[in-house]
């Protein structure tokens, strides 16, 4: 009973740490100052006629007088294959993609199946008739098959990535003990969850009961040790990810939308121009004499100074 309570508490705590960690990272990046424009073409929200060759609105004369429609379809067509199938890696680094794609797709299946399972469990508590009968069977099959397939793919992908990291001369130089640990962590966790669930003794809680127990804090449930170990490791892994570069799903949002595809022009009087005006009041402290920064002079003062003519010009 106490063990089960501890397990529930641990899972909740880990989920909170994970969410908090991801939120902190996202907020940290969102709060950083707007940077100078540094986009890379093609920018997929460009007009379709220009997108096909990677062009921009700067291909027009007097571009500032013309509308710049946002091509949502173009952006989705670029984003979805990247998010779901790692298009860039497939295109530019096929050997890595063959290992990375199963790993990531396995994770997606696991996350999706967990969501489906959680939804089913919660609905079955309040309106069991909605998830009974054929629908219940289909849902059970979907999250079980999805979860198991996800675990197998993720483990296989992680093993393949690990082997490559350990054997490929070009990768080895850049591989840290932390990178090895991360992959091993995934392999061990999903292997434990997979075998713990499949080999659980008769009478042990099913997946849906586990979630229900978690939601209702049902401490009468007893979990077999291998499955409990898998759950603890899974919780630890979720909490650990935001502390590492494995949270690149957050970074990727910013690198794509806030850097690579950020082609917003600063038009006179725009809100963007106002933001820049604020940054120009920052007071840098770069030490090289030609910069002329002393912590008192603003960025604007410095930019308006001509070091070759000895003062403001």
């Amino acid at each position, binding site marked *: 009973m106490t063990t089960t309570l501890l397990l529930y508490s641990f899972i909740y705590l880990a989920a909170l740490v994970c969410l908090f960690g991801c939120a902190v990272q996202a907020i940290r990046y969102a709060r950083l100052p707007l940077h100078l424009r540094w986009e*890379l073409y093609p920018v997929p929200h460009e007009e379709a006629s220009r997108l096909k060759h990677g062009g921009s609105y700067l291909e027009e004369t007097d571009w500032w007088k013309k509308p710049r429609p946002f091509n949502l379809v173009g952006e989705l067509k670029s984003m979805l294959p990247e998010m779901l199938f790692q298009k860039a890696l497939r295109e530019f680094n096929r050997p890595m993609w063959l290992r990375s794609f199963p790993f990531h797709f396995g994770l997606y299946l696991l996350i999706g199946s967990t969501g489906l399972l959680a939804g089913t469990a919660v609905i079955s508590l309040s309106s069991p008739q909605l998830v009974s009968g054929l629908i219940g069977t289909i849902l059970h099959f979907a999250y079980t098959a999805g979860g198991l397939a996800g675990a197998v793919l993720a483990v296989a992908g992680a093993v393949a990535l690990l082997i490559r990291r350990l054997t490929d001369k070009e990768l080895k130089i850049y591989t840290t003990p932390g990178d090895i640990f991360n992959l091993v962590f995934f392999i061990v966790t999903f292997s434990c969850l997979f075998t713990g669930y499949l080999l659980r003794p008769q009478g042990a809680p099913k997946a849906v009961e586990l979630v229900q127990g978690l939601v209702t804090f049902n401490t009468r449930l007893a979990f077999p040790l291998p499955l409990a170990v898998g759950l603890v490791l899974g919780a630890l892994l979720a909490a650990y990810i935001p502390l590492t570069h494995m949270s690149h799903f957050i970074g990727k949002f910013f690198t794509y939308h806030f850097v690579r595809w950020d082609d917003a022009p600063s038009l006179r009087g725009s809100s963007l121009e106002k933001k820049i005006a604020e940054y120009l009041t920052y007071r840098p402290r770069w030490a090289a004499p030609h910069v002329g920064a002393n912590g008192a002079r603003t960025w604007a003062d410095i930019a308006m100074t001509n070091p070759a003519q000895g003062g403001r010009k």
Partner: protein
Amino acid sequence: MNKEKLSLADISKREKKPLVHLESQDLMPLPAPFDDPARTPDWRPLSAQVKEKYECFLDDTCAVSVPQPKSREEEEALVAKFLSGLEKLFSRENNWTFLQPLLLTMDYCAKCQTCAEACHVFEGSGRNELYRPTYRSEILRRLYFKYVQRGGLLSAWQHGDIELNWPLVARLIELSYRCNICRRCAQTCPIGADNGLVAHELRKLFSQEMGIAAKELHDSGSMLQLKVGSSTGMNAEAVKDNIAFIDEDISEKTGIEVKTPWDVEGADILLIHNAGEILAWPENPGAFALIFNAAGLSWTMSSEIAGYDSINYGVWYDDAQFARVAIKHAEAARKLKVKKIVLGECGHAHKALTVIADRVLTGDLNIPRESCMPLLRDIVMSGRLKLDPARNNFPVTLHDPCNLVRLMGVVEPQREIVRKICPQFREMEPHGVDNYCCGGGSGFAIMSPHNFSDWRFQVAGRKKVEQVLNAFRECLDPSIPKYLCAPCSNCKGQFRDMLAYYDLWEQHRILYGGLVELIVNAMTDVKPGFIEWEWR
């Protein structure tokens, strides 16, 4: 040292020996006629004097010429300065300009090495580890986690460790000048990390904190431009004299009276050339003047300081210098009350003033700026000029300047023009936003200290040489004149030197030049033969 054995820790080696040595046979093979490495020019070694005087212990060359410290104390002081710059690089007040993309690159690189496959320097070097885009970045990343994030043992375990000492800093200075900042690597990164930006930010740290930069970019680059108006050294009087001479020459050559307007208040367009064109390729500004006049445009040039030279080398190494020059350009336009600034054929000037300075210029300095390419396209397509493509009936290929194309998205206008007026136009492969840098990007085209030009032709420019040879593969015979159109001054500078280095004009009649020259060459109102098939 054997390239296979290079590790990240080697960067800190105290041994006063280069980390790698390049041999011709190790470099990426070139197509015929250079398929035999013995046919490529010899690489000049650094002199003993240079090795004695400067920090040149990275590879076989030396770009920045940092003097060797005289004592351990001096070394320690330099390392302390580096550390203080490192802190600033990651702070909002000091580096708002690039903090977000830099932090993203530090935090999220998955070290999958996809970037390496896209890098022409890495490929050109025969996959030498030193030039792998992540080699430089990984060193900065480890320094960032160790000294900026103050990571302890756990951080070292997760992110890797590195020993910071003067040899590391000295080598990193040089290594930041082994990247063209073409950002082809960033384009392929699945995460969106940007190793080109890392080279840029390192150069910035060295310049803005330690006062160390390539002399050609700083002393005889941005500083000279801010002092006299142009990095060529031309003041306003000199540039006006030169342009008057060009007008006269072009008038005589074409049979059409050409006069460049100066300081016309209220003109629609302020045209700013890379002033290097005026000295090295005068037919280019001459052709612009002829076309603009023939098209009936209201335009002017400016004799204000920096108003006649679009170069902005700060874009490659120093944000303060970059902003200062961009402001000078905008001030020239404001003074003349023009409706817009149009950039001549200079890739980095395009990117610097049109795009990057977009978030520096505010209020009445925020004057619309555009590329000359769409304007030229509109003129050519409008029928305002009478053009005969038969006058350009020779093989032509088009080089895509990275700054104009991948980094700005100006891809098609120049193509529409060459497709219309050059019957034998053929693309390089790959082209457009997937192009390869000429090897002169990020300032290298104007940098030739010691034997650095050997490196930029043998390694940085190697991929482009391959592309050019392949584009003309069926017509390499010297009886067929060929035109490599490079609508960018720095790219042209690189091609001028590189084609000469590989003897491609003498042996295969490959000439380089700009886009406007092709337009004027096709104009039926102009005396035939505007493009002169002679080396310059």
